[in-house]
């Protein structure tokens, strides 16, 4: 197995080619999109939240394998999780899930979906307080 195959591990390629929870939700409680203008990656997420729990989640976007696989993996993890727990997910969790060594040049790709989650989740919290 070459170094490339290790970097683009089978399940990352699988998540890239067959993204889980891909698409949009109607009337989501939270909807947020972020892009990485440097490379043109885009990731957006829609969340349906019931009693503080993420009932359903979908992501959409385009970009490199790392950004899209990372978003796909994150949605799998988020389903059924409380919003409070979701807010606690950090970059080590996301990088750990990818399970590959991410170079500094690609770290923004890997963490784009986490940024969407964070800004989206905290944005909703702000709305609640108003």
């Amino acid at each position, binding site marked *: 197995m070459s170094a490339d195959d290790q*970097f683009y591990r089978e399940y990352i390629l699988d998540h890239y080619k067959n993204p889980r929870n891909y698409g949009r939700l109607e009337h989501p409680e939270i909807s947020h999109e972020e892009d990485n*203008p440097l*490379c043109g990656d*885009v990731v957006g997420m829609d969340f349906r939240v019931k009693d503080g729990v993420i009932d359903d989640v979908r992501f959409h976007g385009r970009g490199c394998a790392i950004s899209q696989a990372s978003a796909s993996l994150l949605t799998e993890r988020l389903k059924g999780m409380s919003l409070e727990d979701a807010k606690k997910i950090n970059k080590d969790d996301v990088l750990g899930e990818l399970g590959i060594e991410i170079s500094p040049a690609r770290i923004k790709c890997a963490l784009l979906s986490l940024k969407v989650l964070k800004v989206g989740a905290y944005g909703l919290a702000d709305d609640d307080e108003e």
Partner: protein
Amino acid sequence: MSTLTFDVAAIRKDFPILETGIAYLDSANTSQRPRQVTGAMMEYFEKFNSNIHRAAYRIAEEATVRYEATREKVRAFINAASTKEIVYTRGTTEAINLVAYGWGRKNIRSGDLIILTILDHHSNIVPWQILAAEKGAHIEYVDIDEKGELRQDQFAELLKRGPKLVAFNLVSNAMGTINPAREMVAAAKRAGATVLVDGAQSTPHQPVDVRALGCDFYAFSGHKMLGPTGAGILYGRRELLEAMDPFQAGGDMIKTVRIEGTTYHDLPWKFEAGTQAIAEVIGLGAAVDYLSGLGMDAVRAHELEITDYAYEALSDIDGLKLYGPPPSRRAGVISFSLEGIHPHDLATIADRDQVCLRAGHHCAMPLMTRLNVAATARASFYVYTQKDEIDRLVSSIREAQRIFA
């Protein structure tokens, strides 16, 4: 055309970094520097490191002489009329900002038209957007046709509206398109416009004659032409530079400073405030010597040969889309995309094979939007590029296609 054989193997020996085994295909981003350039800089650091224009001792005089010697080398290299027209800057970006500030703020007024092109680099767009917003001026962009070449019919129409400024790059960094600069400058001058040519991608790769070109301003960077980062050039016609305001103010750009007011230094020092990038300017002089030694016609001929070879090789790959004109009308830059593989993923896979490839929007986001892509992969070539490096690129692409199949 140079009658000497272009000896790439000998040239490569001057670039120690190539011994690491990399296939460096990102020279449009920044070039490598030969020993001659780093050597000239080291000599300054180790033998006459001191400040210029100020000190009365021997090493400072030597530093000043070497620093100023670059000006004449550059003048001859681009065939300017006088060294007074050669202003040192940090690079193309600072040179264009200098014009936007020193010329633009004085000459652009509300309602004026500025013509740029969709091929321009951000550094030749954003300074004009800021100026236009400040002055209430208006910007129009010349579009490209399906071959990636500027639409001259549209340019001619825009010129009828009497633009105050026309600014464009001679060579597109993102697609390699060589624009018909001489014709465009002549047409813009006939329309009464002041003309700035962004020479960042042309100066390193082909002969440049600013007087034949006929432009008012010409900007380029040292680091793309074998020189160090931090040293670049603004050429400006003397009468325009004379009438312009200084860009930055401070030490060394003045004649006398009194509490009542200040008189500025003569050209070109009026635009060179503060302690300059002395070693870098000396390094740029050595880079100009190096390129002059090779002959710019020979440099262009070599790059054309490599570009032809690469264009052919890449055209053979299924699912690969090339952007821009055929090799004869492009510089040593090839932008492309692969079906189903993002440029970043390709660049990462190529990197595993020590192939250095650019992936991204190439600081030309309006062009990427126009092409309806978020990013492209880009291979770019220079004096040290050889065909086996293109072969390595091709095998990296095939490897990426295998992984993503």
